[in-house]
């Protein structure tokens, strides 16, 4: 005999729990603002001088990079650009979090806004398998970025060691939707929005990469250079608001 729900354990209302568990309001959900100031760091060549966070905006302060190199770009097979990372977690809506792994079905929303930069940078939010690795095919990073090669800002997507990007003078934010199935990266859509959240550019990339099983995924933020010739002056700052929301789905 089936058990009939009699009251919502959260609100006490009759009829059982609200669909979805009665936790976070999925119909009106805010993004989670990222504060990476105390996260673990991968910075093989000590480019980062400081990472700070205030009023929702994260600032990366740099040491001098006198000679650019492809290894500081997102498109390189070797990836020495500085990044910070932590376990990727989904909010359970009750003050607890679930760490997401490569064995989960996951949907993610990624966003970069309020971007300012002192050099031709690419400020990104991403998910990676092993952000400690400087080998792109081991790091396995997937994400979105804002960039400003000259005076015009733009946005793009990052798929392991490939990128697609566009500039547009009205670019206000970079946004992305990324999904994973069991031990697979599935797809990444990225798009730019104006300050009024009107769509500008978009691009999609099928991934279908095989990932190692039973591995905690990492939320990664960092700064790459726009090209292999980009240089950085001492105390140059790149800043932006970095946000995400993650959903673990039981299929």
């Amino acid at each position, binding site marked *: 005999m089936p058990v009939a729900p009699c009251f919502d354990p959260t609100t006490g209302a009759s009829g059982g729990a609200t669909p979805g568990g009665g936790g976070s309001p999925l119909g009106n959900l805010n993004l989670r603002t990222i504060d990476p100031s105390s996260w673990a760091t991968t910075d093989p060549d000590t480019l980062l001088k400081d990472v700070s966070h205030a009023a929702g905006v994260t600032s990366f302060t740099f040491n001098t990079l006198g000679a650019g190199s492809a290894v500081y770009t*997102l*498109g390189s097979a070797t990836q020495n650009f500085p990044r910070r990372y932590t376990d990727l977690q989904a909010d359970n809506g009750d003050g607890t979090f679930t760490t997401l792994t490569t064995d989960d079905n996951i949907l993610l929303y990624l966003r970069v806004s309020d971007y300012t930069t002192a050099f031709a940078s690419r400020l990104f939010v991403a998910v990676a398998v092993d952000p400690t690795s400087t080998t792109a095919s081991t790091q396995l990073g997937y994400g979105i970025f804002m960039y400003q090669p000259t005076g015009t800002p733009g946005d793009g997507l990052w798929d392991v060691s*490939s990128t697609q990007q*566009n500039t547009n003078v009205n670019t206000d934010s970079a946004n992305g939707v990324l999904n994973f199935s069991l031990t697979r990266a599935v797809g990444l859509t990225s798009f730019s929005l104006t300050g009024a959240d009107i769509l500008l550019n978009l691009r999609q990339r099928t991934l279908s990469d095989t990932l190692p099983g039973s591995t905690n995924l990492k939320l990664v933020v960092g700064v790459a250079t726009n090209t292999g010739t980009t240089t950085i002056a001492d105390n140059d700052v790149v800043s932006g608001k970095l946000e995400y929301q993650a959903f673990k789905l039981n299929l």
Partner: protein
Amino acid sequence: MSNYHCDYQQVRESGVTVEDTDGTKIDTEGFIIPIIIPLSEVGELLANYDPASGTSPGVTYSRPLSRAILDALRRKVEE
């Protein structure tokens, strides 16, 4: 009529850093144009392509492929 087609709604102008078929890293600005080659055409197309020959593929195959690409490019540029 050519059997080669373009998924026109997916044509994009974009900066790209990607890997070419031979593994070469490509870093450029360009148009991404997805071309559809029917499975029924693949055998004949590859049988008549010699990558070692500078004159291959012959016009019977290269022209319809080129036209599918160029029709998409022209429409996109003129939009």
